[in-house]
């Protein structure tokens, strides 16, 4: 039984991580490298001279980008393990799990792990001001956990009480607020920071929909081997 979880999560996570890593390399990494030119002080926003919006960026770095690809695959394998565990629980309650229904699981996963925390703690480009990382991580885990329970209640709840609790869980972290920096010291132009946040969420959405579908597919496929 355990092998069904691990095998389907490994296949789905590794394949998705590969796709997500390539999407990040094409769409997110150039924005990140651009921001780092400001973070390092090589470019200066509102300095004495106007700065070109299209500087030369460092190219492909085998070690750096290779590590990013490996860590993206590991991250999405972690998501996939959580995903198939949740799918298994839902299947026991009569839900149909396959590649098609997996698409909706993917959208839900994106909301839980990316959109919910990003609503108040937007994806940060390097070089922006932020509060203590430990405090932000606690808030991140609490928000993701609350969103996960909330979406489960929305999908599988059968009473208004459950749906009401879901709404409260979705709103509470944002009404309470995330840890914020005392002052803004960001050196990166807002145009770059905004593009970075949008790209991070866009790639996250695509990757999650793919992950959900793959997880549903492999979960169903591995059932045949039992």
């Amino acid at each position: 039984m355990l092998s069904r979880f691990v095998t389907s999560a490994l296949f789905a996570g590794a394949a998705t991580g590969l796709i997500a890593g390539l999407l990040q390399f094409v769409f997110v990494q150039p924005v990140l490298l651009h921001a780092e030119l400001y973070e390092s002080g090589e470019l200066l926003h509102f300095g004495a001279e106007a700065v070109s919006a299209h500087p030369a960026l460092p190219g492909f770095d085998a070690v750096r980008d290779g590590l990013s690809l490996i860590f993206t695959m590991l991250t999405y394998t972690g998501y996939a393990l959580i995903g198939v565990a949740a799918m298994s629980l839902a299947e026991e309650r009569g839900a149909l799990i396959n590649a098609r229904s997996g698409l909706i699981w993917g959208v839900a996963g994106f909301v839980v792990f990316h959109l919910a925390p990003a609503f108040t703690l937007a994806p940060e480009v390097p070089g922006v001001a932020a509060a203590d990382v430990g405090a932000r991580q606690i808030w991140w885990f609490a928000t993701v956990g609350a969103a996960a329970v909330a979406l489960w209640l929305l999908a599988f709840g059968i009473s208004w009480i459950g749906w009401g609790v879901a709404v409260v869980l979705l709103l509470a972290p944002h009404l309470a607020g995330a840890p914020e920096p005392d002052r803004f010291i960001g050196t990166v132009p807002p145009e770059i920071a905004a593009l970075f946040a949008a790209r991070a969420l866009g790639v996250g959405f695509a990757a999650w929909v793919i992950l959900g579908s793959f997880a549903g597919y492999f979960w169903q496929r591995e059932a045949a081997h039992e």
Partner: protein
Amino acid sequence: MTTLTQSLSTTRTRLVPTVFAMMLGVALIALTGHVQAAALHDAAHDVRHATGFPCH
């Protein structure tokens, strides 16, 4: 009765791997996205930013 017993035992055999898979998944995400050890942070730096994890 047989059906009930079967479904109960299915639930039990599934519960342990479900919990294990979930914990393993959370541990993996904590490792790639959150542990602040310098080597791990540097290696995962770009991914942490691109995935929207709090990085540093």
